[in-house]
């Protein structure tokens, strides 16, 4: 008996080679602009935290140490984003038949949750402090928070532009995943390659010139990365990751701004209440700004019908039902795989004498026009 499916022989024990793996990760991180940005910003943040920790231990200041731990915690958000942007580029395999693209939604969700937690903690702390304002010694606070603000400002600039550049990459990427799997995907990525490469080329040029920020010295990598781009099928991390990370950085920035303002207020006017009020305000701001991200990602994770299709779908159902021979349309499920990739399943009840192939292709056509990339239509023939 010949094995008819090729699935059986893929259970190879993975050879664990740390170095190879690490370098592979590293390369894949550097391959994409978003993850590269994330990575460098993570490095910047981590080094800042380490410097702070070292200085804190050296000068034996508890405040600095705890602040550095807070920075580490912040880094987890970046780390999550980075991991997601790497993971989402993994190929789909047997178990994960859709690939790992959902990781980006998940990362956005996790980031949003973390932010909510942080906002909550800050808020409760603020309330506590408003009830009995503690003595804050603000000598050391100002320089540290200004430095943190600078770091975060860099992050804001980087990610704002990163988000723009990649906002429409999702399509090409989703394309490659949704319609083709395995070996077929290769063929496609070749086909689509010319197109996506060109657009990306333009983008990268524009951005890297403006924003590589001189001091980092990774401008060398860029031409190399262009080559990488052409190898990997067009992938860009979606807006979910970016939005999450961006929000996180904005929250941090707001935090440092708040600390600076309250430190100044406390120094100049002795307004001890300024600190808790500032932190409560910031917590509220963070909480409010996170809500849309959370709502969106929860919707995606719960397989909600994509909001952008909400209005288009009834019309499509209508058109499908008007096709000749279609009696009824049952169990329509539409959901979002990742940004801009919509998947749908339908069951059509058709007349016994209907041309099911024609109906099938017409249905595909109708839904492709609204943007449903991957459609499964089961044609059931009505019993007469």
């Amino acid at each position, binding site marked *: 008996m*010949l094995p*008819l*499916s090729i*699935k059986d022989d893929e259970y190879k024990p993975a050879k664990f080679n740390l170095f190879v793996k690490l370098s592979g990760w590293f390369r894949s991180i550097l391959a994409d602009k978003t993850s590269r940005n994330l990575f460098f910003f993570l490095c910047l943040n981590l080094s800042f935290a380490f410097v702070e920790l070292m200085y804190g231990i050296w000068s034996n200041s*508890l405040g600095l*140490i*705890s602040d550095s*731990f807070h920075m580490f*915690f912040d880094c987890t958000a970046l780390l999550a984003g980075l991991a997601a942007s790497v993971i989402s580029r993994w190929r789909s395999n*047997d*178990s*994960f*038949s*859709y690939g*790992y693209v*959902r*990781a980006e939604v*998940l990362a956005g969700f996790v980031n949003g*949750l*973390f932010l909510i*937690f942080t906002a909550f*903690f800050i808020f*409760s702390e603020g309330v506590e402090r408003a009830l009995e304002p503690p003595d804050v010694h603000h000598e050391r606070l100002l320089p540290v928070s200004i430095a943190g603000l600078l770091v975060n400002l860099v992050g804001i600039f980087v990610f704002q532009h990163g988000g723009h550049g990649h906002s429409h990459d999702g399509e090409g990427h989703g*394309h490659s995943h949704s*319609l083709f*799997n395995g070996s*077929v995907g290769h*063929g*496609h990525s070749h*086909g*689509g390659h010319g197109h996506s490469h060109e657009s990306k080329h333009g983008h990268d040029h524009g951005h890297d010139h403006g924003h590589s920020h001189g001091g980092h010295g990774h401008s060398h990598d860029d031409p190399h990365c262009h080559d990488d781009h052409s190898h990997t099928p067009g992938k860009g991390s979606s807006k979910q990751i970016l939005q999450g990370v961006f929000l996180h950085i904005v929250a941090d920035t707001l935090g440092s701004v708040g600390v600076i303002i309250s430190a100044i207020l406390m120094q100049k006017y002795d307004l001890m209440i300024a600190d808790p009020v500032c932190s409560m305000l910031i917590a509220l701001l963070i909480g409010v700004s996170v809500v849309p991200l959370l709502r969106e990602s*929860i919707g995606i*994770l*719960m*397989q*909600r*019908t994509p909001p952008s299709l*909400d209005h288009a779908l*009834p*019309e499509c*159902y*209508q058109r499908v039902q*008007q096709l000749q021979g279609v009696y009824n349309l049952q*169990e329509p*499920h539409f*959901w979002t795989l990742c940004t801009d990739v919509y998947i749908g*399943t339908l*069951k059509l009840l058709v007349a016994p004498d209907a041309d099911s*192939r024609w109906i*099938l*292709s017409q249905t*595909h*056509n109708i839904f*492709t026009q609204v943007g449903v990339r991957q459609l*499964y*239509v*089961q*044609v*059931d*023939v009505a019993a007469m």
Partner: protein
Amino acid sequence: MDEKYSSNVISSGKLGRVEAPDARLTRYIVLLYFTKLMKAFGIFESYDLLKVVHIVQFLFILKMGCAMILVFFQKPFSSGKMIPKRQWIKIFKHAVMSCVISLLGFFGLTLCGPLRTLLLFEHSDVVVISLLSVLFTSSGGGPSKTRGAALFIIAVICLLLFDNDDLMAKMAEHPEGHHDSALTHALYTGIAFLGVADHKGGVVLLVLALCLKVAFNTASRKLSVEIGGAKRLYALSNLVSAVVLLPWVIVLSATTESKVESWSGLILPFAMIIFSVMILDFYVESICTAKLETSRCARYGSIFLFLSGLLLANFWTHPLTDQLRVISKPGQQSSTEHVLSGGVLVSACFFIMADSILSAPSSKGQKGTLVGYSPEGTPLYNFMGDALQHTSQSLPRFIKDSLKQILEEYDSRQIFYFLCLNLAFTFVELFYGVWTNSLGLISDGFHMLFDCSALVLGLFAALMTRWKATRIYSYGYGRVEILSGFINGLFLMVIAFFVFVESVTRVIDPPNINTDMLTPVSVGGLLVNLVGICAFSHAHSHGASKGSCSGHDHGHSHHGHGHGSAEHSHGGHGHSHGGHGHSHGHGHSHGGGGGMNANMRGVFLHVLADTLGSVGVIISTLLIKQFGWLIADPICSLFIATLIFLSVIPLLKDACEVLLLRTPPENDKELNFALEKIQKIEGVLSYRDPHFWRHSASVIAGTIHLQLMSDVVEQRVIQQVSAVLKDAGVNNLTIQLEKEAYFQHMSGLSTGFHEVLTMTQQMESMKYYKDGTCIM
């Protein structure tokens, strides 16, 4: 004046948000607001006047002035038809009634103070009528009206009970000589007879007067038509009541000496009151009722009135206005002001809410969602599903329903009981903490409360899981369970991280801990949490049976390690917890779903973490007490943080896998087997894009493309394949069949380049397969 304009702006801004009236209506609404402000102003003023002027005199002057102005403007005698004698009698009755009501109202004003009078007395008829219809008829107009009535009653009760107004207590011990008329005395004795305190008597009086006023307004509607317009009736009635009051006033001023030094100083305030309370309000209200709808007018009117009443009550006692009044009326004692209290504020809020609900027109037409267009072109609406879910529901019924739902199923019942236990413990702790004034206990209580949020989340998720699928959430809400488990897990991770950091800083610099209070509290917490563990571990055994290899949280949960089926966990469950006896319901509820419940696992882990925390506190307290090792505390918490961290990881991993749409690991083998079987079905060339993923505990969705030979009956293949996959556990399946001709169709249609490319590739692979089958 300044403040008036600013509040004008504010109110119109709010209107824009609420209903966005067009510009012309906005004008009327602003006018209405201005009038209501004036009216509130007038009522505050008249409260001050009533301290010096006798109530009957006051009323007489009001009616008299009003009648003079109205007769001058309205000309009731010269215009319109003659009024027969019979109607004069009616008008007389009308006037007497209105006198009585105004007397009651103003008497209530002297008892309760202006703000409370505004809140109680100045409701429009629409509100009161719908309130009464809710209270005394069976069909009140739906749950929202019931809610409004409940709010109204709560507001009145708030005024009665929670309004500790000092002045009213003072007035309760009134000397006998205080009463200066028979009427006042009668009312006082009446109130005393009812057995309530004075200001409460005032509240009751005002409510009664309100009801009377509404009944009176309704009854006089017919008369006003007969007379020829409400305005004419109003003018005539005012005139007649002034005439009726005249003899009384004469007798009164003859028998008692007035407290008023100079009447001339009072002319201005009287004119002001007459203008604002009696005339302007009447005219503007009638205009607005004509221009806007009645309900809207009533709603805005009362809301504006309350708001401006609150505003004025805030500023009336202000020194500046006080000074102004002292200048205009010297000899006025200003100590007897009714202060703003919390009860009044709360009840004002409730009144505003109640009014806006009660005066809302009862909407019969419900909104549906547009589904599409029928072949004839008429729009089709969907009234089921989401539209019905968003309709307002009566609160008690909602609570009852959700309680029933909670108690229906094992999981949610368990969470609910534990939540109640936890909350009870927390409140005991909080109360004890407040009582003994111990900050540590209070903060611990708040921490417990915070922990309860995880339970609440779990409970909510357990409820939500059972919601029906809607058009938007076409797979149902089953995913909530996994999301909630995921969130709980993440939450625990964050907590563990913070505990870790905190204990690291404490290892470096161990603080002195006050250990006296800790032990009993943490022992109590431990007991509560142990109960929780016992309750949940059972559910957890189901969850863990799925092959999570957590290394730490067992003792109860480690049976069935690595086995995928429900049977195993049944066995393990019997073995570990013989005494529970819930096995039936639970096994049943999970029979279809393969036994995965991330939600319960998350809750369980949370409780476990809490337990570990209390154990750690107890151990470290003992160590510190016995040996004085201050370092024990941070080390304990380090250890616990690590434990929590490690025990959460499997949960997170599983939840992530589900969220990432992994093929369910426990069905992996069966699915592979099923796919092999599908290959062997007659007529099937190959399959493509097999996607199987778990949506929730009970739903595994799957999609697959099948390539068929061109001469097969499609329906039979669909049936066979779906039977095979259903055996493998997939219960939401879509199969797309493709024959060779399909690709030609697709490529002939307006499909893009990529699609054509794949088509050709597919065709090639199909050829290959065809060859393969031919060889075979």
